[in-house]
């Protein structure tokens, strides 16, 4: 008899989120509030998409807005509606990448708000909605790897603003793996692509110097990247701690830590934050506290985040004793290879991280990474978030599911949702498929079929 559903309603949820993430939330809120008044404090504002260029902007003395991050924030706060409505009225189809649709809707709102040009904050009529508070850009920089839509999105933003805002594009070769020596972080394609993107970053610095009217501060870049490298190392160490059984923290905790590592300034506060994250995880291990009470299943989550449902999904999986531990969007993104960064000359390592966007690999490399992480975290099953408007993340998912089944005996399910459009989320599909997969894992364990049950069948569960 399998018992995958919650045995009885409990007053307390089974999820034990990291307390430190509340501090991260405060840091993020402060960052956005600072951005909203950046123009009033005399700073120029850059809108950018794709890889984390914020250290460059920090060194150039700019205020920065990461388009995807702003769209994600709106969705997480359920404030995406006005921007998406503005985008729809402008003509954007509902099947278009909802990050871009939300962000372009913000651009439309921003333009409407330019009727109040002296305020520095646009859309005063909609001040209650965060979407309308985004300050208009002084420049665009596109740094999108993997998804072809990314570069086109910023080009359209440039056109929405009447071609009056300077724009710079960084082009990224897709790491397809043509040559026999191609692989993760190795091979001549990797080396050539790394140098190519690095050279474009040098061009970007020239562009920033023209836009800001002052020399670029290389020392400031090195300093910022020193902090970011250290934060990245601490993040990796914290992730490694989560391989413990039961896991002291979950994928959802790490999702809450994305914003700090993705776009907060490189400084001591960032390092302190990730030190605290790691310390709390270690304390939990020492105290025997797990991220999900009575952890029974260890799952991998593939797909970009469903920002509308972050807390909800966290609780839903925990109700079943399912600890979601790892995922492409966490283990394989966001300064995930800090050893590549030479802080005295950080451009090459930065370029390499931009290339390491988790949608910029052919399925051969993604397969290698997914199997590696499933093995090292003792994964029992994979949940694929079939992200409706993100073709970049979803493209290889079916191949990955087949490989996990064939090579590790790991079952998987797919559920539909989206990054920033709640209307695509299918609750019943997730419910029924999750229960079915967990039951299948139970059955395989009862049969002693370690291969079908995943690695988790080999560990002893808490009494």
């Amino acid at each position: 008899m399998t018992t995958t559903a919650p045995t009885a309603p409990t007053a307390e949820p089974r999820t034990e989120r990291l307390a430190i993430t509340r501090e991260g939330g405060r840091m993020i809120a402060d960052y956005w509030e600072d951005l909203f008044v950046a123009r009033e404090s005399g700073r120029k504002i850059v809108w950018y998409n794709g890889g984390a260029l914020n250290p460059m902007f920090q060194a150039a003395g700019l205020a920065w807005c990461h388009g995807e991050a702003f769209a994600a924030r709106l969705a997480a706060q359920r404030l995406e509606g006005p921007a998406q409505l503005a985008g729809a009225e402008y003509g954007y189809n509902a099947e278009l990448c909802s990050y871009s649709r939300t962000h372009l809707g913000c651009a439309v709102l921003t333009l409407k708000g330019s009727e109040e040009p002296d305020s520095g904050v646009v859309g005063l009529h909609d001040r209650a909605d965060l979407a309308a508070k985004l300050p208009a850009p002084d420049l665009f920089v596109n740094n999108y790897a993997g998804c072809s839509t990314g570069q086109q999105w910023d080009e359209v933003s440039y056109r929405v603003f009447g071609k009056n805002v300077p724009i710079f594009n960084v082009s990224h070769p897709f790491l397809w793996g043509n040559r026999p020596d191609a692989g993760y972080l190795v091979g001549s394609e990797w080396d050539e692509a790394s140098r190519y993107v690095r050279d474009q970053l040098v061009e970007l610095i020239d562009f920033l110097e023209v836009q800001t009217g002052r020399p670029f501060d290389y020392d400031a870049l090195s300093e910022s990247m020193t902090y970011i490298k250290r934060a990245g190392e601490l993040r990796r160490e914290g992730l490694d701690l989560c391989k413990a059984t039961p896991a002291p923290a979950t994928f959802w905790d790490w999702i809450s830590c994305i914003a700090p590592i993705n776009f907060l300034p490189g400084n001591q506060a960032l390092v302190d934050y990730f030190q605290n994250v790691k310390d709390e995880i270690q304390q939990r291990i020492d105290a025997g506290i797990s991220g999900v009470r009575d952890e029974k299943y260890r799952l991998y989550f593939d797909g970009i985040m469903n920002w509308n449902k972050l807390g909800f999904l966290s609780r839903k999986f925990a109700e079943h004793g399912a600890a979601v531990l790892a995922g492409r969007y966490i283990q394989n993104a966001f300064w995930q290879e800090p050893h590549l960064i030479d802080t005295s000359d950080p451009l090459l390592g930065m370029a390499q991280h931009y290339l390491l966007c988790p949608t910029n690999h052919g399925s051969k490399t993604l397969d290698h990474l997914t199997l590696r992480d499933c093995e090292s975290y003792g994964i029992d099953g994979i949940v694929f978030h079939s992200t409706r408007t993100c073709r970049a993340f979803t493209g290889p998912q079916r191949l990955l599911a087949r490989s996990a089944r064939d090579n590790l005996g790991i079952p998987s399910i797919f559920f539909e949702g989206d990054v920033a459009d709640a209307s695509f989320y299918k609750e019943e599909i997730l419910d029924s498929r999750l229960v079915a997969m967990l039951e299948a894992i139970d059955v395989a364990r009862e049969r002693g079929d370690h291969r079908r049950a995943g690695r988790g069948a080999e560990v002893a569960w808490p009494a």
Partner: protein
Amino acid sequence: MPESAALQRLRDAARDPRAYVAQWRAHHPGCFVVGVMPMNFPREIALAAGVLPVYVQDDQRPVAEGRAYLPEFYCGYTRNLADQAATGRLDHFDALLLADHCIQLLGASDVARAIGDRPVFFGMLISSLSDSWAEKKIAEMMGHFRAEFEKLSGAPVEDEALALAIEAYNADRQLLRRVFDERAAGDTTWSPVELQDMVVSAQVMDPVEHHDLLVEALAAAPRGERDDRVRVHLSGHLCHAPRRELLEVIEETGAVVVDDDLWSGRRYVQSLVPFTPGEDPMSAIGRWYAERNVDLPCPTRVQHDVDWDAWLIDATRRSGAEVVVHLMPKFCEPHMLFYPELRKALDAAGIPQLLVETEHEGIPLEALRTRLEALVERAVRHRPAYA
């Protein structure tokens, strides 16, 4: 008037590329045939290596086994490609190659690589064409393609062979473009389906063979002046052909298609390789790619001073088109992103327009007919009254 045998052969090649490839192989034993993906593949390099490069078409069969490999919210063309890969319908190719960074096309190509046993080579042409380093990167990638075909054929690709290949494709495209220009000027009576067959067959066939058949077909063609039906410009479908029944219903509503910017139409034929004998053919092929977006802008390219919307309005003025019908394949993100810019510009120019979101299967033709009839009626009402 009965259809010419030449036109029938072009239509056969367009609608059954596999049969054409089989025939070609029979006449060229030991030679390679590669499938190339749209939209900007330098086929001249392949031909110069003695390889037949065939643009892989949407074969319009329902997606069945392909559903297991790509999600339903990928465009119909890429899901069809995955289906072709899953059911062995790409097996007539010795290799697959692509040059364009479209994430959905890459997804389908990755499926073909994962479940097939043929090489799948991706040489990514830079899409940000305003960059000062674009020319250098284009030249580098064209060099990679040359090396790849030398590896495949086992022999060097000579400049003389490149020059001949360029001339062959240029002659074919030039003749096709003449047909499109004549249609835009009101001099021909080709239907959009007939023109689509001419272009798609060019994307499939050996260019010399295609050119000869096209000459024959055109010689046998009736010509007539344009009548007073409402003149339509078809816009969109950037990388594969719209379904034929869709084109037919447009003209059944009392309209006549006078121009287009479709992949299976003017978009394919608009640019010739700017080659003059004696110069470096590889350099000319690089310029062909760089200038294609200027000759007919594409929303998959980033080029700040090139505007599809402006090109579209100019095109309607050249052809006298009264309305524009946007054919947007469902889930085509570059088209979805750029469509509002087109809509704004056409509205400002006072040109009526209709957006048709096309599906791979199950086009609601009667509902579409009603919308098209309304568009035609609107255009008629906009016509100035005779004095």
